[in-house]
């Protein structure tokens, strides 16, 4: 393939991945999936009933992988068996997958909240009605863009894996990234805005989440609004970086041309990893010098 065309396709995949990452994180924030869900689940037991959507279908990677694999399989069947256009097949596959995800979300929410009756946690039906379509909407966007990436990989870049398997793997990856990056912004900052910024969250505060919104009582859509300012976009950047960089090294240095090019692609990848390690160290030292320590060094060492 023409290297310039390959780079163009890769850029498109990177852009699609950035959107997929951002929507994946916001979908989990609206429904309060993944690790921060532990606090939403715990709050009623600590006498803090709330109006936050509480779904934890599974860990984010398996639930996104299921969604994307369903979408990928439907799209693949529609293209190969019925000869439908790519755009229609991918859109239809993503729509079906999103609706299936919505049924999991609604049943998960109602099941979880019903089990908390003894802690006086109400089951708000208006929350089900208002939040589930938003979850379905975000799930559609995530699945659609993952399918775009998978389709481009399998048909244009000639990846040997079939479309549904690529969609499954990218679903696992986007879930892993969303769970590792954007969710921290929701779990460690948004849920605990009642403590001073940067003061850390004492384990004793577990379950004492903020329940009052900017206006009225806080719900999952308020959380997505807050996280869309930082957590969502950075998740998109992380997934975009992953898709772009892992493809970039083999597109620029094509291992199909010669063994030397193959090793150059490996070296280029290792150089990027080295830059990331240095970048991490710079952020670490910046944070330590700017924020300073929480406590002074122990006095025993001075007096001893």
């Amino acid at each position, binding site marked *: 393939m023409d290297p310039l065309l390959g780079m163009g396709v890769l850029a498109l995949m990177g852009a699609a991945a950035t959107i997929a990452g951002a929507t994946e994180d916001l979908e989990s924030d609206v429904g309060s999936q993944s690790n921060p869900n532990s606090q939403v689940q715990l709050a009623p037991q600590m006498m803090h009933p709330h109006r936050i959507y509480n779904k934890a279908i599974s860990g984010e990677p398996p639930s996104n992988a299921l969604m994307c694999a369903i979408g990928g399989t439907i799209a693949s069947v529609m293209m190969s068996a019925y000869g439908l256009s790519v755009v229609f097949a991918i859109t239809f596959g993503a729509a079906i997958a999103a609706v299936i995800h919505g049924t999991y979300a609604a049943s998960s929410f109602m099941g979880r909240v019903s089990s908390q009756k003894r802690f006086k946690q109400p089951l708000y039906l208006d929350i089900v009605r208002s939040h589930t379509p938003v979850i379905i909407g975000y799930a559609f966007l995530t699945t659609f863009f993952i399918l775009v990436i998978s389709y481009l990989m399998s048909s244009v870049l000639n990846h040997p894996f079939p479309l549904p398997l690529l969609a499954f793997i990218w679903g696992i990856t986007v879930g892993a990234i969303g769970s590792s990056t954007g969710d*921290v912004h929701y779990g460690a900052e948004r849920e605990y805005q009642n403590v001073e910024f940067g003061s850390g969250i004492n384990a004793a505060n577990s379950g004492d989440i903020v329940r009052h919104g900017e206006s009225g009582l806080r719900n999952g859509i308020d959380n997505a609004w807050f996280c869309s300012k930082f957590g969502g976009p950075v998740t998109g950047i992380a997934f975009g970086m992953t898709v772009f960089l892992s493809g970039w090294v083999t597109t620029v240095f094509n291992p199909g041309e010669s063994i030397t090019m193959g090793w150059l692609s490996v070296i280029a990848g290792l150089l990027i990893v080295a830059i990331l390690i240095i970048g991490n160290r710079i952020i670490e030292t910046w944070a330590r010098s700017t924020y300073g320590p929480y406590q002074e060094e122990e006095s025993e060492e001075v007096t001893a």
Partner: protein
Amino acid sequence: MIDIVGILSANLLYVLLITIGGTLVSFSVHFVPVGGAPAAMAQAPGIGTGTVQLAAGAGLTGLITAGTVLGLTNSIAIVLASGAVGAMLMIGSTMIIGQMVYVFGVGVPPAGGKSKYDPITKDQQDIYSSQGTEGHALPTASYISGIIGGGLGGLGGSLVYYSLVNVTNNIGMTDLAGLAGIFAVGIFFINAVIPSYNIGGTTEGFHDPKFKKWYRAVISSIIATFMCAIIGVLAIGGL
């Protein structure tokens, strides 16, 4: 009727390579610094997700890269190295963005809880931990440990995939790649789950005391992967 003995004896090398690959995955998971739900609340150091989730995300990204390269070259060394690099890029990108969320979004500096000084940078850790937490974010030692873990996981996953693709069979490359990919993902998951019993939710990487228990998971993985390898080789070799 499938000639079980014939297929296994013809592909014995690949059975062994799959077993080694799966065991590498199991060993690699011990390096990945994960803090689970406490880390998502910045109450423990590491990435705020589960062991299996992050290890699988990284390793499978490596598998995609290895799949791309295997379609272009037959050099096993380049395929394995590309798989490792793909996984390292995924976990490196994820950890640096995660670090940014902790520092800029939550406002806490990186601090480990298992050792007073970072084993690589020698920076003091305990004074940077906020009250009531074990630490937060990713100090350099944890970051580098994660990169090593991602690399080994990608290497192991690629080795499994490479071996499965090369098993003697009578099916076309398109079907073979898909089938081998599915088996590789399955074997990867089995070996990502086994070490999580050692890790028990949180680990900071190679300097965490839990790391010393790696051999238990590795022994379990050798047995589990060997059985998976026999089934995988028979399934693909019998077609």
